[in-house]
């Protein structure tokens, strides 16, 4: 009977919250716009490779070449491996249009031009580039970048990796020629000294949205319980309506439950919107089991409810609640691998990430949605989320009850 009352009361509180919410047009519009903005925003501010175009880049070729002595006619010729590199860069660039290439004299010139904002980056091919390569040493190339643009330097690195890889082929050809005296022209096929190939583990092309969509779903759910809940309760406390519930002969539990329910429904609506946007607008392909994804989404909510209730209990006013939420939310947002893979972060930050439940929610959701994983692959994440939620709830509920009768 008592449980029936708790459920009935929380249902009506949830009903009240949702009716109130649906009557505010602005809030309903925001409910839809927020995920849309978030999705398109992250797509543009965290650029993938193809978003870089026409960056002015200068090449300073200081290569002096490799001298080859021909004992037959006692002459010597120079081989310029740097030419191969440059033509490879040009070739790749013609296809991608990433750079606008020009040439420069040396490092000093590149530096000056970057400082004048004429260049985004420079590539310096050192004097001994050919010599090193031909003698079987590693040929290296210096990339000078505008430090305010780290994304470009990452892209340049990928690009140069590819071209140096291609040069490996040239070296192979030259060595064959030298060893067996076979002319370049007669060579039909050759084996490269090394070869790199990328292959995804699921069908279809992956893009950044594929990576970021599960993260944003987890983030949105976290926000709706962690910020929505303290906000809803401390707002009602500030305007005085909470007293109406506290004075009624209902369990304090009904109040939290009703509020959590309302926030969860709002969170789920947003998650569904993100889901739909990801699939229909941003071409994300969903691999995993939808039911498992939904279960995971609910577990995510569960794991954050306790934290939300705790913040509510400690915040005497709405303003305090907002400040506490923001302080907790930002590290979670950026350290939990929602926008960047955790593996990209320095080691100590990766340790921090391990203590944030959002990390597990994001990882698990990504595994299920993008990689099509089943329960066996995410049992660890599931356990962590369940434990985190349970422990925090066990702490939060008594604290909340006490805080309500100060």
């Amino acid at each position, binding site marked *: 009977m008592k449980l029936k*009352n708790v459920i*009935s*009361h929380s249902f*009506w*509180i949830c*009903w*009240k919250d949702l*009716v*109130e919410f649906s*009557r*505010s047009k602005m809030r309903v519009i925001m409910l839809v716009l927020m995920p849309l903005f978030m999705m398109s925003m992250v797509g543009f501010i965290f650029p993938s490779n193809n978003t870089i175009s026409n960056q002015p880049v200068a090449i300073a070729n200081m290569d002096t070449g490799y001298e080859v002595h021909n004992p037959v006619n006692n002459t010597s010729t120079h081989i310029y491996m740097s030419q191969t590199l440059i033509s490879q860069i040009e070739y790749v660039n013609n296809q991608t249009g990433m750079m606008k290439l020009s040439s420069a004299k040396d490092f000093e010139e590149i530096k000056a031009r970057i400082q004048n904002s004429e260049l985004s980056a420079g590539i310096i091919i050192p004097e001994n580039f050919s010599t090193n390569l031909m003698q079987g040493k590693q040929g290296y190339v210096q990339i000078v970048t505008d430090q305010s643009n780290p994304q470009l330097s990452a892209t340049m690195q990928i690009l140069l990796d590819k071209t140096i890889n291609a040069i490996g082929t040239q070296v192979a050809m030259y060595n064959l020629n030298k060893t067996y005296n076979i002319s370049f022209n007669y060579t039909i096929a050759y084996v490269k000294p090394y070869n790199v190939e990328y292959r995804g583990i699921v069908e279809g092309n992956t893009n950044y949205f594929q990576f970021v969509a599960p993260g944003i779903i987890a983030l949105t759910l976290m926000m709706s319980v962690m910020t929505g809940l303290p906000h809803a309760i401390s707002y009602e406390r500030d*305007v*005085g*309506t909470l*007293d*109406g*519930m*506290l*004075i*009624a*002969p*209902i369990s304090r539990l009904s109040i939290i439950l009703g509020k959590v329910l309302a926030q969860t429904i709002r969170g789920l609506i947003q998650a569904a919107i993100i889901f739909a946007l990801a699939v229909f607008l941003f071409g994300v392909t969903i691999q995993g089991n939808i039911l498992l994804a939904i279960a995971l989404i609910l577990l995510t909510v569960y794991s954050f409810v306790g934290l939300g209730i705790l913040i509510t209990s400690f915040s005497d006013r709405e303003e305090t609640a907002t400040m506490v939420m923001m302080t907790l939310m930002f590290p979670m947002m950026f350290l939990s691998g929602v926008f960047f893979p955790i593996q990209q972060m320095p080691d100590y930050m990766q340790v921090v990430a391990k203590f944030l439940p959002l990390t597990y929610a994001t990882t698990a959701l990504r595994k299920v949605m993008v990689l099509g994983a089943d329960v066996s692959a995410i049992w660890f994440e599931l356990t962590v989320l369940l434990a985190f939620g349970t422990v925090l709830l066990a702490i939060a509920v008594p604290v909340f009850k006490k805080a309500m*009768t*100060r």
Partner: protein
Amino acid sequence: MNEIEVRNLTKKFNGFTAVDHISFDVKKGAIFGLLGPNGAGKSTTMRMLCTLTKPTEGSAKVAGYDIVSEDAKVRDHIGLVAEKLIMYNELTAWENLKLYGKLYNLPDDKLEKRVDKLLKYVRMEKWKNARVGTFSTGMKQKINVIRAMIHEPEILFLDEPTLGLDPQSTVEIRELIRRINLELGTTMILTTHIMVEADMLCNRIGIIDKGRIVALDTSPNLKKLVSGGVQTMEFEIPNLSSEMLSEIKGMSSVVSVVQEKDTHLKVRTRGENTFDALLEVIRKHGGKIRTVRNLEPTLEDVFIHLTGREMREETASKNSAGRRHRRFMSGRVR
């Protein structure tokens, strides 16, 4: 029978004593007034009695139940009209009332009947499905009061129920409070800083200052505290003469005479039938009386008498100018 019994109730916040060992009883069906300036501890006392905050010391029984150990049972029997409105602007009057009906476990059929009856009671039937946000402050407060009555509580707590209302709504709400008390026999505790309100509505008044009850009695008895049985009358006599004045001063029933301007006399008298005797003396000297006023002491005088301070000064320091003005206005409505 006492519906509310308060014994040495005390509330401290971080060393500051908001309510300091107060004790009082409220009889069933009575309206008890807690009168005092802002910050005197009225609201804190109310919140303790409503189980919204726990007392630091002392105890109280509401409807026969202890407010700390039996708080859940207390909640079954009380309704609250707080200083801030307990209702949601985005919801209609019906939805607001329905929510609270549901929280008090009213079944659907009973709930609808009850809501209709209550809306009729405050003559707001036609506003049933309109959003509360579109209502005037006075209309909102009416809904707020019937919201507190949705489960027919034996005891109703009213914390500054006319705060911020326009003069007309103030009259209406006071009328509503009196009607509920008379027709339904609801016991009430009302806090106010408006003297007239306490005087009009309350059977008994506790004057509270700095967390203590400094006086507790009926309104006439409290006024006697100030006057000590002395009555003050003000006469306006255009042809006031010095002979007339000296004879009045010489009367045995007259305590003191103060002449204000050339034509005004403030006469303080003691005893029965002093007014007749005064009239005779004035007539004998051919005096014409243009106006006469009986200056009864107000609860304001009682407060000054007891604390040595005025109440409005205290009020002024805590509120914005607009709100103060409205309070002042509502305080003057008779």
